């Protein structure tokens, strides 16, 4: 069958996307910096705790439990990083920013060997829910860390670090509980809410998670910057560059 002559690469930019290149390139730069920073943090540091503040890269403190003194973050950081790498929102962003499959809607996709997610390793993104299961456990520990951030040597103490850890736990909770896989587990896998026990409450939960899910991208970005900022704050405290601001 004849192909459309318009199949040639379009020279025309979409009206509303004249700066279409901005978003994928910004994603490329920010994600690259985040991955490099994470690798530096996880692979070159043995300590992630400053007084009662524990960096999210080191939480839960499995290294302490198992008595592993070297690079304890390696034992846990793969969970949140794997959760993000297989996240549907991040997939959209890195397929656009890194793979250019496509860089933006209507922009010619140059990839010659595109296979989508039909082959390994990209088909492993289907394992996203397993990272979710583990991330749910991590979130519990992040809340424990946030509470610990307000207690120092048996006293209630509020510092800038306490508030940062609290905000980190809040944003990571929103990111985790607005996840597409969580939405599916809560009610997306049900065809008939009205004909099963507990269906009414699962429907309400599914609606709530669906509402949160519409902001999943926002939570993905904000929680990523928050993890980054929290860790950087604790790293600067550990290295003595700054001192924690205590409010009371």
């Amino acid at each position, binding site marked *: 069958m004849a192909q459309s002559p318009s199949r040639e690469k379009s020279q025309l930019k*979409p009206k509303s996307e004249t700066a279409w290149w901005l978003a994928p390139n910004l994603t490329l730069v920010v994600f690259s910096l985040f991955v490099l920073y994470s690798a530096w943090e996880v692979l070159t540091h043995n300590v992630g705790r400053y007084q009662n503040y524990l960096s999210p890269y080191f939480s839960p403190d499995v290294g302490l439990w198992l008595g592993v003194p070297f690079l304890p973050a390696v034992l846990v950081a793969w969970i949140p990083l794997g959760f993000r790498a297989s996240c549907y929102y991040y997939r959209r962003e890195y397929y656009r920013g890194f793979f250019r499959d496509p860089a933006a809607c209507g922009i010619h996709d140059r990839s010659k060997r595109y296979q989508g997610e039909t082959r390994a390793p990209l088909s492993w993104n289907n394992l996203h829910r397993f990272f979710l299961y583990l991330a749910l456990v991590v979130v519990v520990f992040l809340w424990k860390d946030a509470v610990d951030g307000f207690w120092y040597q048996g006293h209630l103490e509020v510092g800038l670090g306490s508030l940062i850890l609290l905000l980190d736990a809040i944003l990571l909770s929103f990111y985790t509980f607005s996840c597409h896989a969580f939405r599916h587990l809560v009610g997306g896998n*049900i065809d008939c809410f009205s004909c099963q026990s507990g269906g009414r409450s699962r429907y309400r939960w599914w609606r709530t998670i669906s509402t949160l899910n519409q902001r999943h991208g926002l939570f993905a970005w904000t929680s990523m910057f928050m993890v980054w900022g929290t860790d950087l704050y604790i790293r600067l405290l550990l290295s003595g560059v700054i001192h924690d601001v205590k409010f009371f």
Partner: protein
Amino acid sequence: MATDTTTIYIYRGDASGGEERPYLVEISPGMVILDAIHYIQANDAPDLAVRWNCKAAHCGSCSAEINGHPRLLCKTRLDDYLATDTPVHVRPMKTFPIIRDLVTDVSWNYRMAKRIPPFHPAHPAPFTLDQRDVARIQEFRRCIECFLCQDICHVIRDHDAKDAYMGPRFMAKLAELEMHPMDTENRIPFVRNDAGLGWCNVTHCCSEVCPEGIEITGNAIIPLKERLADQFWDPVRRIFRRSSLTDVGQHEPKDS
């Protein structure tokens, strides 16, 4: 009083080739691109081919590409472009073979539609359905089959993988059937093997161009990927499914 005019560039040609030609159009208030094309047909080029029907964004006939972006001609206002001094270029949908000018052959979509396993209810209609159970699939029933989502999908558009992937329109159709509370057919193996869901890399372009605002990626494709993971990637849930702990109490159990 001088009449305001603007130049619109329209692709003229067929399968053997063609080019964009400029046409001068008298601007009238509230004009959409389809109005401009009708003006050109009436004044300059009566042989200009364009497919249209309702002129109200209900029939899905007037799909084309305006400045490289898939849109309905009847729903795109000319003054959006005039306000920013952007020249208007109208071309046929890139993904489908051209017949003439702005008309493309979209019959591949109808062949794909025929391959989808039909609705298979637990018992014959009429049904009494709870609104909570059908609210989700009603979104997909808004589809007007304009095929703009198929046009923008890079899997079909740039990789021409029509043999491997049915495209977002049919993912929405499959999701609609798969999520129907009365349906008993298990289409997930079909979704994986025949419809080629794995080819989609969830870049959301189909949702962005849908004139009906259907969230195709978020509400159809990703839920289907999750259901596929249930059946093919999740041994834990497979065990639970055998114990009938999921989808308990459907009108009729799936896979029955």
